[in-house]
């Protein structure tokens, strides 16, 4: 019973967490997105793993996609590298992400102080940086970073803006712990590469996601002259990402749901057994109560109330442990779970219903017992 109710609480909390997670994801990814990664990306523990240096995607691929795929609205290439940044005596390691101004549009990145960089600054590989709020706090504390010179690696960069705080994303990556600089700057001055790692592509409308994905795949395969070799890139669209997420949640929910129903059933049978034992051991008490004036319905009510109390106690502990587990899981495991009070109440009510249902049989047995039989029993 306890486990059953706990599961209900966890299940619904998890479901709500997952739902929020998915909405968050869509919100933060930007809408109608297709993501192309260089090389094969594998999912390890829910996080993307990509081979360190993959040399398959080029900026020219991005131009080609924007030109040839009609339903594409915008495309933003990026490449990143983990590097040291320094300002005065403060110093930290963070992700330096090279992007074009399109990335700010597609991924809804805004600044809370200062500005983003423009196409001119990108094309001419200026050393300008838009920093995340974690960087701003760590390096600058209370000071306004805009206008100051930081060093990325050895190169000096001017901070032009600070991004609005976005928090930790679904996969546990802190989106405020990074610095955006122009793509041309990172490729020509910092990393010196001809390759990009990722393209975010925005499609004009949601219905075109799948067809656009197919067109982009064909285009890239053709451009990379793959013939009958496997893709040297990974392409995902928002519809399938969301679908996969939903699928995973659904599986978990079904799992927890079956734990819940099995344990509620077991709890119910437990109550049945306890109440039948109570019935057998308390025949004399039933007889006595009948002798002093209890009606059959009084006995039935008493037994039903007792099963209800049993189930209610089980339910109470279940709700308690469910909430405890939910809190622990979201605190320690970094799970995305939202405590659902409705579910807690619902689980509690469910245990009461189970208590009543499984209490009916013993209660009516007790009520049917003839008083003289009850009094004569040993």
């Amino acid at each position, binding site marked *: 019973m306890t486990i059953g109710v706990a599961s209900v609480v966890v299940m619904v909390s998890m479901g709500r967490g997952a739902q929020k997670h998915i909405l968050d994801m869509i919100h933060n990814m930007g809408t109608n997105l297709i993501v192309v990664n260089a090389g094969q990306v594998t999912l390890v523990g829910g996080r993307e793993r990509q081979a360190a240096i993959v040399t398959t995607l080029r900026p020219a691929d991005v131009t080609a996609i924007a030109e040839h795929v009609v339903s594409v609205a915008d495309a933003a290439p990026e490449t990143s590298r983990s590097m040291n940044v320094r300002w005065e005596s403060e110093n930290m390691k963070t992700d330096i992400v090279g992007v074009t101004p399109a990335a700010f549009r597609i991924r809804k990145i805004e600044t809370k102080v200062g500005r983003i960089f423009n196409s001119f600054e990108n094309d001419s590989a200026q050393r300008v940086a838009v920093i995340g709020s974690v960087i701003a706090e760590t390096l600058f504390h209370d000071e306004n970073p805009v206008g100051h010179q930081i060093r990325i690696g050895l190169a000096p960069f001017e901070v032009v803006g600070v991004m609005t705080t976005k928090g930790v994303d679904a996969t546990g990556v802190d989106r405020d712990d990074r610095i955006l600089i122009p793509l041309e700057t990172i490729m020509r001055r910092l990393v010196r590469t001809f390759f990009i790692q990722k393209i975010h592509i925005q499609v004009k409308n949601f219905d075109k996601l799948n067809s656009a994905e197919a067109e982009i795949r064909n285009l890239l395969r053709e451009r990379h002259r793959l013939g009958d070799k496997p893709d040297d890139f990974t392409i995902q669209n928002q519809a399938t990402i969301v679908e996969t997420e939903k699928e995973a949640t659904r599986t978990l929910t079904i799992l927890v749901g079956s734990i819940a129903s099995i344990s509620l059933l077991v709890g119910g049978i437990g109550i049945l057994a306890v109440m039948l034992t109570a019935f057998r051991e308390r025949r004399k008490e039933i007889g*006595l109560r*009948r002798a002093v004036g209890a009606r059959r319905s009084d006995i039935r009510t008493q037994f039903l109330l007792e099963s209800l109390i049993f189930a209610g106690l089980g339910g109470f502990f279940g709700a308690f442990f469910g909430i405890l587990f939910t809190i622990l899981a979201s605190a320690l495991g970094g799970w995305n779970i939202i405590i659902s009070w409705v579910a807690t109440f619902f689980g509690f009510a469910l245990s009461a219903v189970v208590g009543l249902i499984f209490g009916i049989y013993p209660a009516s047995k007790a009520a049917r017992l*003839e*008083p*003289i039989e009850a*009094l004569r029993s040993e």
Partner: protein
Amino acid sequence: MIKANKIEKTYSKTAILTPVLNDITLSIQKGEYVAIMGTSGSGKSTLMYILGCLDKPTKGELELDGVDVYGMDDDALSALRNKKIGFVFQQFFLLERTTALDNVLLPLIYANKYPDDALQRGRKVLAQVGLEDRVEYLANELSGGQQQRVAIARALINDPDVIFADEPTGNLDSQSTAEILDILGHLHQEGRTIIIVTHDRTVANHAQRILELKDGRIAEIKNP
């Protein structure tokens, strides 16, 4: 007060269908103290349960206080037992781990309306059986004689017309037996109708009237 006419009782379970009670006709007046005697298995308890409306006869009529009991439904019989009848059993039948007072108040739960003066009434009937200093004791902390006195107090709580006592001294030593018979004697003097079932002649002798059950029939053996 109680009028039984040609009562017959046959337990359907017994293989040989010889009736336990056969053609019992009797009448008990208000305020009488009556003993029903007989050997073990003669059907004394069966008769008492029928007179006390806990069981129904196979045949025959029963009138209680001028009301025909035969036609009453189950709930009406419960209400009748609650208001008009008090039972005392050989095995006391108290709720363990429950105080003497709460045991005594039990019948009030099943009354139409739980009385406001329940506690006073509980204390009063406990005082009547000499247990005013044991009110908050748990039933299992009391001696056998004390437990039976609690049971008598419980039978008195609703101020019943009749008290039925089935071998009330069967589980008690001679000292406690005397106490219980003393209390029943007092209740009789207060004007209550008392019907005691016993196989013990000396116990039966405390009553005004003795009826003997034998082979399912009844015989008057003492009548003042």
